């Protein structure tokens, strides 16, 4: 098993006829991802990489049985595309574009919760279940099938962790990019819990970063997990970010510095890592 996607996932691509959509559809297919079709309104009836294109998500689902979608569209079009997908019944959505307006993502999150769908991104490198499916823009070279789950706010960190886990023989069950935007479709919490419930995942690496509040939120869930969690946070030596006005300070309090994030995670039971090579060392100690 894997979380969110595997070789049986039926994947559609929203924006499949666009430049990035075409390019990455080809790449994802090369990896063996089970892409069944795509959507571009007004281009129904065409084909990309031999996969049929539909005018709406509902039609694509009807004809292909798609249950997962990857979005390659301009940021301004993401809100409607995501709402269309979850309303039509897509249960997992990968939002690759960056610079999505924050109010749009708040709305997308609301709809996703309402329709019980999972969304990752915006600005995510995607998700990969090595050897089975690669959704998004992640470079397959770094990944090998295995027993560690990874969840990260940064694409590049994801690759380095994968590289490390592959080289040391652990490999990955699934690697999830939450995305780099300020408001994200999913937080660490939801993904951590999926890993907790996944038999194949023997440990999880959480890759966080200065700013935002999602690492702090994760400390609510880590103590409830049996699966060990390793945490690495970028920005320990970065100057602290600015608070947004008094309101930001009142709402988010002291959250946001990398050091505090790592300390809080450690306090909640996670194993802190400084650099990537700490990861296999800790895994070894834990007997993973």
């Amino acid at each position: 098993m894997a979380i969110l996607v595997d070789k049986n996932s039926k994947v559609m691509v929203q924006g499949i006829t666009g430049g990035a959509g075409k390019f990455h559809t080809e790449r994802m297919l090369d990896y063996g991802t089970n892409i069944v079709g795509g959507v571009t309104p007004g281009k129904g009836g065409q084909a990309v990489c031999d996969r049929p294109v539909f005018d709406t998500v509902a039609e694509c689902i009807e004809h292909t049985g798609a249950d997962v979608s990857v979005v390659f569209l301009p940021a301004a079009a993401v809100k409607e595309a995501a709402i269309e997908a979850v309303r039509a019944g897509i249960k997992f959505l990968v939002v690759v574009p960056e610079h999505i307006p924050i109010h749009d993502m708040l709305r997308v999150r609301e709809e996703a919760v309402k329709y019980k769908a999972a969304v990752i991104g915006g600005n995510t490198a995607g998700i990969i279940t090595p050897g089975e499916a690669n959704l998004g823009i992640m470079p397959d070279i770094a990944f090998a099938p295995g027993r560690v789950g990874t969840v990260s706010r940064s694409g590049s960190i994801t690759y380095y962790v994968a590289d490390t886990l592959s080289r040391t023989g652990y490999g990955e069950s699934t690697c999830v990019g939450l995305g780099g935007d300020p408001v994200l479709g999913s937080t660490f919490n939801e993904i951590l819990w999926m890993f907790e419930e996944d038999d194949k995942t023997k440990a999880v690496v959480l890759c966080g970063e200065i700013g935002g509040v999602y690492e702090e939120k994760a400390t609510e869930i880590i103590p409830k997990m049996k699966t060990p969690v390793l945490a690495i946070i970028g920005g320990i030596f970065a100057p602290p970010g600015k608070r947004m006005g008094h309101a930001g300070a009142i709402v988010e309090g002291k959250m946001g510095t990398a050091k505090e994030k790592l300390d809080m995670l450690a306090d909640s039971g996670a194993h802190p890592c400084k650099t990537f090579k700490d990861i296999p060392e800790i895994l070894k100690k834990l007997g993973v």
Partner: protein
Amino acid sequence: MRLYEFEGKQLFRKSNIPVPEGHLVSSPAEAYNTVASLKHAVALKAQVLTGGRGKAGGVKLADGPNEAKTHAEQLFKLKIKGFPVERVLIEPKLDIKQEFYVGVTIDRANYKLVLIASGEGGVDIEETAEKHPEKIVRKSFSVEDELFTFDAVDIAKKIGVPGALLRKAAGIIVNLYKMFKVYDAKLVEINPLVLTAGDELIAADSRVSLDDDAVFRHADLKEMGIEKRHEEGEMTEREKRATEWGIPYLDLDGDIGMFPGGAGFGIMGNDFIHYYGGKPANFMDSGGGPSPERIAKMLVLLDENPNVKTIFGARFGGISRCDDFAKGVIMFLKEHGLSKPMVMRMTGNMWREGVRLFEEAKKEDPSLMEKVEFHGIETPIEEISKRAVELARQQGVK
């Protein structure tokens, strides 16, 4: 993107939130003329994109044009947290009876909008929030929720607005909340919302931050002269140049030039350098899928920086492709040349093609890569980081 006080007040006015009649001036002479034409005492307020203005002496009161001119001269010489004062807002001096705070922002952890209000407005609001949380009223909303007048009346009452002004205060709160939504804001604050001796409610200061990613859908902002801009921070010459080139860049005080791929490792790479005893000279991000031209420009910024002793390069091709990366590095080496040693690692999408390009370039001109130590996926990034610190030390010794 943060707005100047006077810009925020333009939005307030458009949103039916009462603001003082303001005059923006760019010189002491203009300040003199403006105040001479007014018949009342004024406040002169430095317009800068940072907080802490009051404590830095950025606000002055004047009874007449001469005094205004003297104050303006001081203000235009002032730097507030490094920001030079280029414009001063002149407004009638307010006769303040009470100060309230009203703000709206986003609670990212819970995916909500939050309205915050207090009967104790002013610069100490954060302290109030910490020491007397009971003096702060908070209310959360889903992004589609409307704020109704009755809820605003309730909030106004809880922060101590007098009965006769409840409806007016509620109207201001509702309009502020609407403005937050209409303009895709990240933050809107009226602080203080002043109750004057004449029982008027007026927004004495504004703090507004909009979502740069949503500016495209608000054509009226451009009409008001409000364009997409970066967050606050005074820029060095090099930062300005980088901004012109569209490259996120920040000068630091170390000596290792950071040439990373991806914002995530851009930040964490700095930590790695520190862990191995070095100090980075900068932050940098290539942005998603950079062109060879941009890659070349990133290297120009580092190579021309006299503080940089060595360059640390790291590229893990994701949406950014290694072939484009290699093209950019080769373009830089050919057109500009490298004046300091560089250690780099390249892997990820299209890495084979990238390696091929480097090999071809080397065949063409064997000296081209002589200052570059090149690594692939086989070398862990920690080793590269260590090596960069070593190289910088060696340069320092020279």
